[in-house]
């Protein structure tokens, strides 16, 4: 790996070398390194590009890294990754894609992921997306995530896009059975003329299933963000969506909520607040000695990282 590739890998997956656990590295549309373990099988798909990741039942405290890097222009990468998590597991999956494009041709990555999470299992899924490289070519990321959760399972999805992605459309669909719990934290920063769109749809079919979505977005310059969410409560369940946006310059953020309590025992809430940085937050930090600019950056950093 060259330096650019190493740095990308660090940024998206905190990896400084090949990790000891299950691992699959995809580079410029090809799988380049793969490592299964005794508990976790990573199997290439036969009829299309992508992998099946099979986590055996009762596997606990294990991690799986499946980073994707693209360092060329003009590549349109499409990959299908399917996760099959057995019962009673507890695993961390680190995914994400970094595009370094110094050409004038657009590169894109379309990662279609599905998660089949067994009874009583816990999955933490961390996905980071970044774009870089001075070329005028676009850096496009369109992740699709489908989540199917069995009884009493917990899925925690942390997704972030903090720089350089020119266009993204994030689609997430989830279906939750009895007592399944889904937690989504999304942090998105757009600058210049970037566009980022997010769409969530969650079917709460199980009794006492719950979903909690917290989306923090910051839009600067002329950038545009759109946040659509759609919660459907088909049982006694709980859903909460919180969409918070900070606007700077001429940027726009649009939040489009839909909540549908089909079962009248469903409790669904959507909260959205979009606006510029609150004046009193700036003043407070300035009384601690930060300049106005430092205070702005501090507030944005805290908002996107914590």
């Amino acid at each position, binding site marked *: 790996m060259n330096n650019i590739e190493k740095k990308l890998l660090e940024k998206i997956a905190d990896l400084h070398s090949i990790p000891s656990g299950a691992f699959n590295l995809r580079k410029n549309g090809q799988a380049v390194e793969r490592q299964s373990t005794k508990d976790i099988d990573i199997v290439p798909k036969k009829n299309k590009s992508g992998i099946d990741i099979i986590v055996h039942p009762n596997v606990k405290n294990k991690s799986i890294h499946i980073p994707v890097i693209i360092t060329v222009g003009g590549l349109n990468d499409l990959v299908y990754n399917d996760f099959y998590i057995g019962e009673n597991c507890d695993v961390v999956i680190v995914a994400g894609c970094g595009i370094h494009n110094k050409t004038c041709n657009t590169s894109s990555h379309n990662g279609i992921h599905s998660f089949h999470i067994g009874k009583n299992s816990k999955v933490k899924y961390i996905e980071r997306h970044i774009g870089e490289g001075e070329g005028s070519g676009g850096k496009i990321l369109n992740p699709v995530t489908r989540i199917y959760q069995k009884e009493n399972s917990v899925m925690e999805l942390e997704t972030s896009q903090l720089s350089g992605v020119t266009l993204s459309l994030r689609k997430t669909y989830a279906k939750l059975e009895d007592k399944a719990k889904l937690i989504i934290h999304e942090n998105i920063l757009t600058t210049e003329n970037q566009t980022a769109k997010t769409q969530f749809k969650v079917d709460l079919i199980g009794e006492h299933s719950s979903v909690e979505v917290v989306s923090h977005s910051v839009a600067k310059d002329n950038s545009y963000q759109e946040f659509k969410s759609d919660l459907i409560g088909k049982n006694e369940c709980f859903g909460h969506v919180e969409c918070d946006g900070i606007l700077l310059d001429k940027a726009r953020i649009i939040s489009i909520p839909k909540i549908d309590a089909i079962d009248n025992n469903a409790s669904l809430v959507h909260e959205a607040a979009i606006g510029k940085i609150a004046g009193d937050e700036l003043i407070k930090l300035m*009384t601690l*000695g930060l300049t106005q600019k430092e205070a702005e950056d*501090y507030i944005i950093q805290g908002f996107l990282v914590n």
Partner: protein
Amino acid sequence: MLEIKKLSYSVKENNDILKDINLKFEDEKIYVITGPNGSGKSTLVKIIMGILKQTSGEIFFDNEDLTALTIDERARKGISYAFQQPVTFKGIKVRELLDLASGEKNKLNNHCDFLSTVGLCAKDYLDRPIDDKLSGGELKRIELAMAIARNAKLNIFDEPEAGIDLWSFDNLIKIFSSLKNATNIIVSHQKKILEIADEIILLKNGEILAQGKLNDIAPMLENDKCGRLRGENE
């Protein structure tokens, strides 16, 4: 030393929020500003911090004119300000603001001291976000902890007792006594806080109605049957 000369403040809708205020605050003393709600106490201390700009008049801090200085410049000169209504954030933690306030990163021992002084247990609070999930009293104590962490030359507290319910006032008094090597300006209605003042400034309708020791001021407060001067019944 802080000196305020001929200071006035007015806005379009309200001409005389503060009228010709002249005050001297000497080093290592405790000044308590009291008076009815709406008398201009918060306005006055906000002007000292630079949060509001006076319409006319001057403020000198250690003989330097503060008028042209921004909030952060005044903060770096050694002025600290605890808000009447603490500000909340999204995603900023207690630990981080204590770092900023003290100017030192991750001095765990000090952070614990600051928090325990205000009756909070550091391990429960350092990693909590400063947001509206904290109660009013908790926010107010954290605000005080930050003021202590600043270790400033001039401390301003705007109604520090408000919302501090279960926690005894004696602790609050101890805190102010421990800041004796700084100049302290406390906006307060609380008798116990008035009792520790070296000087009390009584404001009413934007003017200084009286100024002096508790002995001089107390009769005025006590003769005020409606409790207006004590900030009650408003």
